[in-house]
């Protein structure tokens, strides 16, 4: 009976599922060339993965002008530390890990900024710019804004778990490894964050 629920359900992790062997091999070749100083090879990697990194950063920070800067910081950090990338995980996973760390740094900077210039009653939602895409209907824009607001309600550490596990589709084990957290901590944060999101977003889910 529950199969009805899964009918027509496409696995929601196209990013990971697209990582076929040939793709991983191609990435490895470009990474090796970039390690040797081939800037064109690194450019190919940037072109290939910028949207996916942007999605991670937008999920963490909400739509704001900072997103472009943080994605740039992510790739710059990646380029500088490319020599330390051993290829144990996929290149995309490596990028995502940097993106999450850079996003958490940006959230800390944001908190310091808010602490300095705004009153304690204001929270970091004020940094979020409302999404308005003229290609979408008013209802759709409102829906996207509400989802962002709900995610911004979560503490940054819970948000990172939700982003990696629910949005990016990494397994719980991979999420724990990427965030350097025990498995149990990821599970409890996931559970609490989901509960909060469900409370806020139930009207949209129905």
């Amino acid at each position, binding site marked *: 009976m529950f199969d009805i629920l899964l009918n027509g359900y496409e696995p929601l992790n196209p990013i990971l599922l697209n990582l076929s062997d040939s793709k991983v091999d191609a990435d490895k070749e470009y990474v090796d060339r970039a390690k040797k100083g081939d800037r064109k090879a690194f450019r190919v990697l940037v072109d290939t993965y910028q949207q996916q990194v942007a999605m991670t950063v937008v999920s963490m920070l909400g739509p704001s002008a900072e997103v472009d800067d943080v994605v740039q910081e992510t*790739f710059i950090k990646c380029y500088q530390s490319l020599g330390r990338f051993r290829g144990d995980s996929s290149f995309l996973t490596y990028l995502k890990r940097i993106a999450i760390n850079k996003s958490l740094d940006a959230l800390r900077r944001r908190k310091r900024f808010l602490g300095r210039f705004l009153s304690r009653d204001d929270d970091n939602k004020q940094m979020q710019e409302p999404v308005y895409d003229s290609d979408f209907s008013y209802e759709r824009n409102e829906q996207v804004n509400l989802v962002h607001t709900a995610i911004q309600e979560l503490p940054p550490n819970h948000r990172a778990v939700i982003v990696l596990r629910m949005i990016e589709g990494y397994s719980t084990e991979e999420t724990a490894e990427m965030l350097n957290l025990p498995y149990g901590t990821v599970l409890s944060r996931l559970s609490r964050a989901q509960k909060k999101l469900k409370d806020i977003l139930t009207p949209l889910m129905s």
Partner: protein
Amino acid sequence: MKMDHYTDRLLHLLDGTLEPDVEAQLRSEINQSVELQEELSRLQALRGLLQDSMKASSDSALRPFFTDRLMKQLEPEHLKQIEHDDIAFFLTKLFRPVAVAGFIVAMFFAVYNVNISGDFASETTTAEAILGLPPVNTLSVYDLDLFVEEDPTTPSSNP
């Protein structure tokens, strides 16, 4: 039923990453529990909503020419210097013919002016000859019509 224990397994089911025997057991549990079916449905809807919204936002998150701007930042300083030198070389190359042509034209006019300056009987300095200026001396000033005759019909301001 303690749903927290099931959440991760349901997510694994949605990912399709469960072992076959574990998956079969979970499927049979779901078939017997309306609560689990609702939870699976909610989880799937929540995940779809989150991914859909994030995808929509990320499409316009980056400003134009992201790759170009990034690669510019990654350029080593000495490469940037070479690029600046390239621009200077290009400009020099572009304007050299114009400068040479301008110099030749100026020389032509100077020689022409010096040649025709011999036709004037009056005194002409070298600079005037080269620049082609008309000769000016004390006598020639009187030839200039600098004085305006007063109209006798106009009343004078001083009585």
